[in-house]
């Protein structure tokens, strides 16, 4: 039988050794991990303009396709001196609306079209959901979207990141004929045929589906001033 003193010293020494070992490992691997996260972000942005990439070619394609990026505030004024890629939208969304910085990416596609990519961030059922949405140069039709999530239910809410769900958003419109902001509804029970402002929700994933709807609405609302400013075909 070991004495209490022995047990205390034993546990303290053990914990110290483990802590040092884990710290060393974490610091050593951090650059590689951060690079992976950076490349994934590039891949996500490219997915929203319908370009499929692999982790290997993502950086090259990103540099070719994304011709510039900028940061705007909720009034549509560009903020200079900030790199859009390094803006953490999750942190920005916690600030009051007037202080928020919204990143915008400009993509030139192979067919010569220009797309604006906007970043999205919202809440799902179990945790955060996020994504990117790209608008054609008319600043109204959606060219593509990309959604991802931290911990939605597999087979239900997690379906938001499948091509089947994301594909529905293509060619939908975020403004009505009068130029009012309508966003895109995610409708339980299915969107009416031919409705350009709605898509089908996921059966069994209602809360996540609504989360996607709110995310698109709330984030694009912050971009609304910027979008209207750059909308050349305004009614």
């Amino acid at each position, binding site marked *: *039988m*070991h004495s209490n003193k*022995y*047990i205390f010293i*034993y*546990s303290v020494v*053990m*914990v110290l050794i*483990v802590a040092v*070992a*884990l710290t060393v*490992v*974490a610091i050593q*691997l951090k650059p*590689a*991990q951060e690079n*992976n996260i950076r490349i*994934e972000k590039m891949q996500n942005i490219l997915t929203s303009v319908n370009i499929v990439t692999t*982790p290997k070619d993502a950086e090259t394609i990103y540099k070719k396709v994304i011709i510039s990026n900028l940061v705007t505030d909720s009034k549509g004024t560009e903020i200079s001196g900030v790199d859009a890629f390094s803006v953490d939208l999750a942190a920005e969304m916690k600030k009051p609306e007037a202080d928020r910085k919204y990143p915008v990416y400009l993509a030139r596609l192979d067919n010569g079209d220009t797309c604006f990519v906007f970043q999205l961030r919202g809440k799902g059922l179990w945790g955060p959901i996020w994504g990117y949405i790209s608008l054609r140069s008319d600043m109204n039709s959606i060219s593509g979207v990309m959604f991802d999530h931290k911990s939605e239910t597999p*087979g239900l809410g997690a379906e938001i990141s499948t091509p089947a769900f994301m594909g529905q958003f293509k060619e939908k419109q975020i403004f009505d004929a009068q130029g009012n902001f309508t966003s895109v509804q995610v409708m339980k029970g299915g969107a009416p045929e031919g409705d350009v402002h709605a898509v089908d929700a996921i059966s069994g994933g209602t809360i996540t589906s609504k989360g996607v709807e709110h995310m698109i609405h709330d984030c694009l609302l912050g971009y609304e001033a910027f979008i209207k400013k750059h909308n050349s075909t305004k009614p």
Partner: protein
Amino acid sequence: MSEDKNTREPMFSAKIVKILTRPFNLENPITVQVLGICSALAVTVQMKPAIVMALSVTVVTAFSNLIISTLRNTIPSRIRIIVQLVVVAALVIIVDQVLKAYVYDVSKKLSVFVGLIITNCILMGRLEAFAMAQKPWPSFVDGIGNGIGYGLILITVGFFRELLGSGKIFGIDVVPQFLYDAGYVSNGLMILPPMALITIGVIIWLQRSKNRELIDKS
């Protein structure tokens, strides 16, 4: 401590080989001891995550067995479970960090299941039943054996689920196009966890029909 008092044994004596190979079949952690089922259902949709998971579990069982066995005479018995958990948790975190750094896409697919290796019953089972009473080398081999035994089932299940569920192996199409043209459709049900359970059930059935001694007397 019930420890072998034998003097030095050769590295790969018949006993060591037996310790290594026993978990492949007659003492398989999944099909015979029925441990670690949950992760086996979750990560076997494709071959690649199944193999990475198998490797991760093998590394963790082998090294936690080795470390605990080395320390076994110093570990105060009153806190031995805590010591085991700390060692396992530290190893799992290291594995998780390495996966995040070098195979990021796979680590995303495995998501929480790497972290849940900590609670994998195979680990605590082997630590308590084997490493606490045996010398480091046999314990290390036992860990590798159990990891491989676990991995064999994972990879077998992953093979059939990926083949029948999406017509691919390692993400490469293997079902020829003319079969699809003739009306063959991949079985989407195979991608869902229930079919993993059924696949494991079939493996258990085949294994017991070959090894009659595994069949319960009752």
